[in-house]
């Protein structure tokens, strides 16, 4: 069952129940009040009649100087005839078994034996006869030598029929009210739960995959609060999905690039080898083809090496220990000079310690890659500078060359995987396009910063800023 239906039915039921209880209480209260009143009135009247009879009889007895009550019956009859004229009141005065006065008729219940009561205290009972209800009070009239029983009967059917009417009216009222209530509740609750439905609709749309959808609710109640929170959640979901999509695209791009970089040299290797075995040409041509196969093979080797570096960087967690950058620089310089013969490497280092938190192998790779790039960009006779100096809270490493430089439009992209600014020249030098990318990864692992400055035709400067390692003095 729907919430609004539950709300309608519950509140309606509850209201009707309360209404009923109230009505019943009210009607019963009315009846009781009426009854009390009738009782009081009757008791008073009966008392009045009793004392009236007593006085009258005594008076008349005294008047006629009688002591026994031989004429009591007449006195009582006289008295009562002149008194009772109200409808619905019946009286029976009885002396033991003898009836002194009665205006009871057959429809009335028998008076019955009176109960013994104290003087003047009325005992009452209610009895139904035919289709009418009667209030019967029994009283004692203490004449001098004997008690008379005063039975007072009052028709109180009115009270009961009143009650019945009230119930009947109440029922009708209830029916009308129910209809009105039901209608009113329906519209009110539908209106109040409208925001809930709006929310549900929106949520459904988002559920179907439309992550841009947001809930628009203008109220300020609890539902609006929920909608607000839901929107925040949808924001987070959309963001995450975008992130994931981008990540996936990036991965696909990387894979495409890698595949291309692998298959291209492989084409040369396979192709030229196929040529050599199937259609051998002269010695010069054979020499040239074999040389190409060799170069492209080396290119594949370099690619695989770099890929392993990348995987290594991604998979590993590295422990950074304090090391002096200077020793690492010297080692890298040593390795480089052994390979380089066209350019001149100039090294400058600070006199003081240049201690940073780092991983020796990674730093070696970093410096070699930068020197490699510098070498590739330079011409014969150019110089390459490897420098470091200490700042206030940092250690700065610099690699500078006097070579080709990087065009403005490429500067932003040089750190991308497989990106090569001058593809042709790089290919000749078996460039892969991963060198700087790996440098960027290493820099990140060392929590350092990397800055690239370059001018076309003038040269390039790569600056790496390491946070200084400060020994805990506490």
């Amino acid at each position, binding site marked *: 069952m729907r919430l609004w239906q539950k709300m309608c039915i519950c509140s309606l039921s509850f209201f009707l129940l309360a209404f009923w209880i109230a009505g019943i209480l009210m009607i019963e209260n009315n009846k009781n009040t009426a009854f009390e009143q009738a009782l009081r009135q009757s008791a008073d009247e009966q008392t009045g009649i009793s004392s009236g009879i007593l006085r009258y009889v005594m008076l008349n007895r005294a008047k006629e100087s009688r002591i026994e009550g031989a004429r009591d019956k007449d006195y009582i009859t006289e008295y009562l005839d002149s008194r009772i004229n109200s409808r619905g009141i019946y009286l029976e005065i009885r002396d033991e078994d003898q009836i002194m006065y009665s205006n009871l008729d057959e429809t009335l219940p028998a008076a019955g034996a009176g109960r013994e009561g104290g003087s003047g205290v009325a005992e009452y009972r209610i009895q139904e006869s035919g289709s009418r209800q009667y209030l019967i009070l029994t009283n004692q009239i203490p004449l001098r030598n004997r008690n008379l029983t005063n039975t007072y009967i009052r028709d109180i059917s009115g009270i009961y029929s009143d009650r019945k009417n009230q119930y009947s009216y109440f029922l009708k009222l209830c029916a009308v009210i129910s209809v009105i209530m039901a209608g009113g509740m329906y519209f009110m609750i539908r209106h109040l739960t409208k925001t809930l439905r709006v929310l549900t609709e929106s949520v459904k749309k988002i559920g179907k995959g439309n992550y841009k959808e947001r809930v628009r609710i203008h109220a300020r109640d609890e539902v609006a609060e929920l909608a607000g929170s839901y929107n925040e959640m949808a924001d987070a979901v959309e963001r995450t999905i975008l992130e994931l999509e981008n990540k996936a695209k990036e991965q696909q791009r990387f894979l*495409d690039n890698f*595949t*291309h970089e*692998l*298959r*291209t040299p*492989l*084409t*040369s*290797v*396979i*192709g*030229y080898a*196929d*040529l050599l*075995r*199937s*259609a051998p040409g002269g010695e010069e041509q054979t020499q040239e083809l074999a040389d*190409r196969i060799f170069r*492209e093979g080396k290119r594949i080797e370099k690619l695989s090496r770099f890929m392993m570096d990348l995987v290594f960087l991604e998979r590993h967690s590295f422990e950074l220990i304090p090391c002096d950058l200077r020793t690492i620089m010297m080692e890298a310089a040593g390795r480089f000079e052994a390979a380089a013969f066209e350019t001149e490497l100039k090294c400058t280092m600070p006199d003081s310690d240049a201690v940073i938190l780092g991983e020796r192998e990674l730093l070696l790779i970093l410096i070699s890659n930068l020197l490699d790039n510098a070498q590739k960009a330079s011409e014969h006779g150019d110089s390459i500078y490897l420098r470091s100096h200490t700042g206030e809270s940092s250690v700065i490493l610099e690699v500078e060359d006097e070579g080709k430089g990087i065009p403005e439009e490429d500067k932003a992209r040089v750190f991308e995987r497989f990106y090569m600014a001058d*593809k*042709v020249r790089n*290919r000749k030098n078996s460039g892969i396009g991963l060198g700087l990318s790996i440098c960027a990864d290493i820099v990140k692992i060392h929590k350092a910063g990397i800055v690239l400055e370059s001018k076309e035709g003038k040269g390039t400067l790569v600056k790496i800023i390491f946070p200084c390692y400060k020994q805990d003095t506490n």
Partner: protein
Amino acid sequence: MIRILIIEDEEYIADYINLALSKAGYDCECIHDGQAAADAIEQKRYDLILLDIMLPEINGYELMEYIKEFHTPVIFITAKTRLEDKVKGLKLGADDYITKPFEMAELTARVESVLRRYHKGKSRITIADMEIDIDSRTVKKAGQKVELTMKEMELLLLFVRNRNIALYRDRIYEEVWGGEYDGQSRTVDLHVQRLKKKLGLETSIITVRKIGYRLEVDE
């Protein structure tokens, strides 16, 4: 002479294709960037274009749109092997698609297949003193018609297409009979012997030791 334009930015690969196709008797030209290629196509007529998709500057697909206007058949060369890339290429109007790395024989076979489709391939090949009609699958030796079985014809065509190039036995088997060469089979040798006899090619089809056979002709 059939003119083929090779649009490939990797120098070595362009050279290799050039060498391979030249040996097969085509006249080749290499261009390394898309813009220059577009200019060349506008100025000269080519019978076939080999196009590398991953070109710097211009996207191969975009260049394809441009080439379509000239109604020149195009074969895509690329390192992308995904099915969706192949479909995309073919949908754009490429006539065939070859993925790197590839062997010479595969390259020449595809080139020939596309040219044949466009009726630019030679329907009649004259070689030495033989006249081969590809469409009717007949061959005349010194003016005399020679009867060849279907397999013999295929074999002859394979040799002609790859003239002066050593053909490996397994390659011959694959191309003519289909399926894997089991190494022990003498099918190839038997058929080559018969072919040599029927067409008097004893001195032209040479056995290459440990490899297979080669049809030698003067170009």
